[in-house]
């Protein structure tokens, strides 16, 4: 057996109305999930600046999760659609720069989907464990 297993660090940008509340529901329902995720609360997934995601990856996060309301459910009408376009564009840029775009996950998780939030964190943690540590940090460190 290996000595210590690699524990990925996930930074999650969650919208206040849906996914953050969904994560709260996972808590009130006592649904267990891996402790690898660190949540930053924003008002809307549409306010996730691509620079936040890049900064997290370059600083050494192994994965970045962006959580928003399901299409049509945005508290601000269209923020999640804006997030979707922005994250697709960001992933395209990451790919072209030779960076691993699959470390960035965008997921729609509603306030009533505590289980889905826990499942997402579990899946993402497993995926990143498989994938290994984020090499970008090393490359960018001066």
């Amino acid at each position, binding site marked *: 057996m290996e000595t210590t297993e690699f524990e990925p660090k996930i*930074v999650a940008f969650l919208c206040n109305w849906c996914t953050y509340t969904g994560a709260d529901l996972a808590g009130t329902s006592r649904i267990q999930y891996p402790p690898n995720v660190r949540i930053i609360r924003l008002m809307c997934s549409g306010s996730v600046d691509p620079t*936040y995601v890049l900064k997290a990856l370059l600083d050494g996060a192994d994965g970045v999760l962006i959580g928003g309301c399901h299409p049509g459910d945005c508290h601000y009408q269209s923020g999640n659609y804006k997030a979707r376009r922005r994250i697709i564009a960001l992933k395209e840029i990451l790919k072209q720069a030779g960076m691993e775009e699959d470390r960035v996950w965008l997921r729609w998780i509603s306030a009533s989907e505590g289980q889905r939030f826990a499942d997402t964190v579990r899946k993402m943690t497993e995926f990143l464990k498989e994938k290994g540590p984020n090499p970008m940090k090393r490359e960018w460190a001066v």
Partner: protein
Amino acid sequence: MASRPRIGVYICHCGTNIAATVDVEAVTEFAKNLPGVVIARHYTYMCSEPGQALIKEDARKLGLNRVVVASCSPRMHEPTFRAASQEGGVNPYQFEMANIREQCSWVHHDRDEATAKAKALVVAAVAKAARLEPLEDREVGVTPGAVVIGGGVAGMVAALDVAEAGFPAYIVEKSDHLGGHVADLNRTFPDLEPVAEWLPGLIERVQSHPNITVFLNAQVARVEGYVGNFEVTVSGSKVSGSGLGEPGTHSLQVGAIIVATGYKVFDPHRKPEFGYGLYPQVITTLEMERRLAEGDLAVDGKEPEHVVFIKCVGSRDKQLGNPYCSRVCCMISAKQAQLVRQALPDTRVTVFYIDVRTFGKRGEEFYDEARRSGVRYRRGNVSEIYRRGDRVVVRVEDTFLRRTLEVEADLVVLAVGMEARQDTDEIATLLKLPRSADGFFLEAHPKLRPVDTAMDGVFLAGCCQGPKDIPDTIAQARAAAASALIPLLRGTVPVISETAVVDPELCAGCGMCVEVCPFGAPALDPLWGVSRVNAVLCKGCGACAVTCPSKAIQVRHFRPDQILAQVDVLVE
């Protein structure tokens, strides 16, 4: 410029909710050494009176200008701690919460891992708090009046309360009459009072009230605005003294909205094994109401010898996707069974039930009365109804004896349950209301906020929130009206202070923020050629801030440096 941070950090045990999983002492010791932290403490219940007093006393004594509480979700106690900070002389917006309960101690078992995560969440909160700027509370005026969607008992009662308090109430009713489903009932349980003795009076009071306007054949087409200042567009006909007006579009300005759209009666065609629509002997409780009202219980011109009631038709039925109890069918069956016994003393009456749930005031006594009147209650699941000559046969599993029985009957009454209306979806989209798994509208909290919704200023009344009887409906309608009256009577509502703001030095006047804002908050100042934000319209979503190429527009409390500071410490 901002003062040098002097931060107080408070770690809550939440009894054992946090302390059992997270080493609160270790987190406190750790927090003491974080930059800007002047004091760190832990306490059993930070939200309690002595817990809040700790914050206030420290703030005054040590001259704190930032407060961090690590406890539950900010959705729970942020207002509590903001108020405590303010009383201690700290600007309430220079407060930050670390959610170490819902997002840590309740979802992780391992004490070391949970403690490490709690520390990380505290670092991030401290990093953000250090960069928070002081903000002012803001309020806006309220447009007096409320729109009530639905003209059933719930809607009428809610509208009357709003109107009696002196505010205009607008009822938007989809059908061509007021009264809703109750208008189809004959007598109500448990007093057997004829509906005709009170419903017309209620309708009359609504129609003649000077503060109430009724729209019939009407629907809500559009809803704009926010609590205190909604603009509701209604398409339909306005009722005036001379009768129903021409159909048209009406724009209503109100401060609150009450949703009272009611329910849909379960369609028993969806249980084909019961033969509804196929056999004239099989009817619903609603059809039975009419027969009892008309005193016509005959089948094929003959008095029935045996009447069978089947409960939970469309309720407590997982195969249909309706696992919930409709709450009224047990009492309706007990009522109708008694009335049959009274009208036809020689007729046998049998009720097949899964469970008897005659809760509520006088409910159990009413069930006793039904049994004393000679109604036979038999526990059983009905599997099928088929024809035999002039009669029908009810095939049923006696769930006590575990035996299949066949019972002949002349009349079978299906106690049909309640379902969410098909148009619930439209209303949910118009008002951005979430729905629960059963399809009904979701209240903001199952215990503490039963008539509030996720949308401030929108309230729920009656069966649109879930099945209930008339007394419960009226209680909820009056609660919804009372809640809607809070902003109307206050005359102002608080609005968010965390709005977008433009730095005119950085703004190039490109107008991208104007284009991207769904609320029309930013506009270009024609004189200076820069963007300016109308703070009343801004909801603080931050779409503009991400779009701005020069980062000239930012949302207070969610500025890039505040977010990036959290990222920094979290991935260290």
